[in-house]
């Protein structure tokens, strides 16, 4: 069970997490900051975690990731006692985070999803719960498509290609945590009546299309996916001796970075690199021409062919050029900066009965005390004790999960 840390930023906050994969990361973020998060696991529900199942085990890596530092309780929603338990948990919660069909049916049955006086309820879904989107079906790919992010990924000669790793679901979780904390601040600031917050993943992504929406709004130009073809000389993904590097020395970079890059290409003696010193190459208009992009890519890859990703990374960064290796997850685990900062953590996972490597937290709060990390609860949830503890009730008091009634 996670250690209580009352002095943590969210040390006084109780959260009910009744989510499927679309919203589950929200509770993880709040739990890391000290909230007491209890996860509702409806007994007999369909397997909600097919994503990233770990071969040879019964668990999903996504499930282990998003449920770290939570408690869980198995609730029998087909019994009155189970429903009463869930209602009691919701009544005690400062924040209730939901996603998926179960909470929707609960609400349709007229049951509240938050404490009426001052509770915050956040629901996450692909299209939002208000209006025409409520009935639409989705998974991560569908949400990426609806939010426009899918259209910008992939190669110009094929279909749009989704980004790896259920990013739409994780985006839903992050923004649900934001919404939950805004609701909590309102309640603690004295806004009466509580808050229902309806998070749409489509809306998150439609607001995350870089300058492409502004480009359409102001010029009518629809940005298309560029894939492995750079949009501008100086920026893009370039092949080197053992893979690729990503680099930005164009529009968003500085004039100094572009000059340093040209100087490096010239130093390397790349034939034709001297031509990049012409003033026209310093203009965005010239660097965006297809022939400029092709010329630069040829020169860059000629120089890069003699370097590994790591060599090129440090060589270009020494010259203050924003470049980075295109890392695999194994490369990420070997990154020196992250190692020096002690980023990765080992957690003993009770379901796998072994130590597992976790990515570190997304931020550091050196002036706050944060709880240590503890294993995600077993998939499927625990019987009554966890709920009784969370409710602060004596054993056998409010905490029947409904199992006896079955």
């Amino acid at each position, binding site marked *: 069970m996670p250690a209580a840390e009352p002095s943590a930023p969210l040390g006084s906050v109780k959260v009910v997490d009744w989510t499927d994969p679309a919203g589950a990361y929200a509770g993880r973020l709040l739990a890391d900051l000290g909230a007491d998060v209890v996860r509702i696991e409806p007994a007999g529900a369909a397997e909600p975690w097919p994503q990233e199942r770990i071969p040879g085990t019964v668990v999903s890596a996504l499930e282990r990731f998003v449920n770290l530092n939570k408690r869980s309780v198995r609730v029998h929603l087909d019994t009155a006692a189970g429903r009463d338990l869930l209602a009691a948990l919701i009544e005690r919660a400062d924040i209730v985070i939901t996603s998926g069909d179960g909470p929707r049916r609960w609400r349709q049955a007229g049951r509240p999803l938050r404490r009426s006086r001052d509770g915050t309820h956040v629901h996450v879904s692909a299209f939002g719960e208000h209006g025409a989107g409520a009935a639409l079906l989705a998974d991560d790919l569908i949400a990426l498509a609806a939010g426009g992010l899918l259209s910008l990924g992939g190669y110009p000669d094929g279909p749009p290609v989704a980004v790896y790793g259920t990013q739409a679901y994780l985006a839903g979780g992050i923004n649900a945590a934001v919404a939950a904390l*805004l609701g909590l601040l309102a309640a603690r600031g004295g806004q009466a009546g509580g808050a229902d917050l309806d*998070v*749409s993943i489509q809306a998150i992504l439609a607001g995350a299309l870089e300058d492409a929406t502004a480009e359409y709004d102001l010029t009518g130009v629809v940005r298309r996916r560029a894939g492995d073809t750079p949009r501008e000389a100086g920026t893009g993904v370039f092949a080197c001796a053992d893979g690729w590097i990503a680099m930005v020395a164009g529009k968003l970079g500085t004039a100094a970075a572009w000059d340093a890059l040209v100087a490096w290409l010239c130093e390397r003696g790349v034939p034709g690199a001297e031509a990049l010193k012409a003033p026209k190459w310093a203009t965005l208009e010239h660097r965006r021409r297809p022939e400029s992009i092709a010329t630069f890519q040829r020169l860059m890859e000629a120089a890069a062919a003699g370097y590994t990703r790591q060599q090129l990374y440090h060589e270009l960064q020494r010259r203050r050029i924003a470049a980075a290796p*295109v890392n695999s997850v194994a490369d990420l685990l070997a990154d*020196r900066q992250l190692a020096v900062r002690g980023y990765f953590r080992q957690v003993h996972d009770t379901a796998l009965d072994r130590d597992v490597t976790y990515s570190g937290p997304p931020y550091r709060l050196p002036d706050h005390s944060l709880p240590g990390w503890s294993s995600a609860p077993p998939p499927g949830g625990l019987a009554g004790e966890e709920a009784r503890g969370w409710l602060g009730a004596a054993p056998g008091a409010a905490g029947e999960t409904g199992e006896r009634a079955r």
Partner: protein
Amino acid sequence: MTAVLAGLRVLDFCWVGAGALVTQALAMHGAEVIKVESRTRPDNLRVAPPMRPGTSGLDASGYFASRNAGKKSFALNMSHPAAAPLARRLAQACSVVTSNFRPGVMERWGLGYADLCRDQPGLIYLTMPMQGATGPHRHYAGFGSTIAALAGLTEPSGQPGRAPVGTGTHYPDHVPNPGHALVALLAALVHRARTGQGGRIELSQLESTASLLGPAVIRYSVTGELPSRQGNRVPWAAPHGVYPCRGDDTWIAICVRTEAEWAGLAAVLEMEADPRDRKQHEDELDERIAARTARWDRWELMRRLQAAGVPAAVAETPGDVFDDPVLAGRGYWRTLHHPVMGPVRSASAPHLWNGQPVSPRSPAPLLGQHTEQIARDLLGLDHAEYARLVADQVLW
């Protein structure tokens, strides 16, 4: 409109990418965000396209406008020796200070946390260095796309046998990094409301992005298996892909997880619901599906598939999202009238609050638009002092 953060004043040194979206979200929810910027070294986005044809200059960038709505602009030339003392005075009138410079820049101006917290124990101080304030790569430069590559997100994104492509955007700047920073900042506000204590938040943009690779890190640590580029395919559904529709470069995403969804797809596309293992025959099924979807209008096909119980959505372009009926029904796009750019359609928060959108209250500021007001109200400068500091290119 809900103004949960009304009364919160933020001194905002963030520029360019992720940081600006954090403070824009604060402004949307009622915070007074004072963006410190300067003509001598303008925010890169102020000179970046897109711009409406016929407009130009430091106040015409749609890129800048899309992440600075609702803020105030205070023009302060930090390279002038008289500027830092003014900034320190301004900080005393604020309870949150945000920045995303390289480590050491704020400290050189006497605006480090140690400098400011002496007078303000409740100060919340957000920094967003690229790779953190410590470590051998703390001074390395980066942008969203290079951070995505470094964090391991780009490499598994793409088609098998082809170069990795990532999202095609500076994704970490738009989703994980501003989002995570907001979570930490709001949690710090909750804590301060309870205890009076503030503190530092350091968001390394690399660490924030790498945290989203958590599931892959877990799987790798248990099995030694690395994710690989699989296009749009996933192990837990088939077919699961993006298929052409009628028209130029128009696509629909379709996801089939269950037998019922498979039967629904087959019925709408008038094809046989092949009873074989779909995963094993995914190539063949994708070809058959694509041949049929290509005859359909993408919106009509989405409507029909959804009605048949099949998860499906048009792969909307950055133009389509403005016409999307679901987003429109949520009041997601709000037209703001910018003095240089004219009408600008701006995104609201991704949540409805008790059914209502939370939108930016005003367009992105002109550079220095609020300098005189802030100099008067928060620094107590009279008009003569203000005019002298402008003439000396301090308030500039």
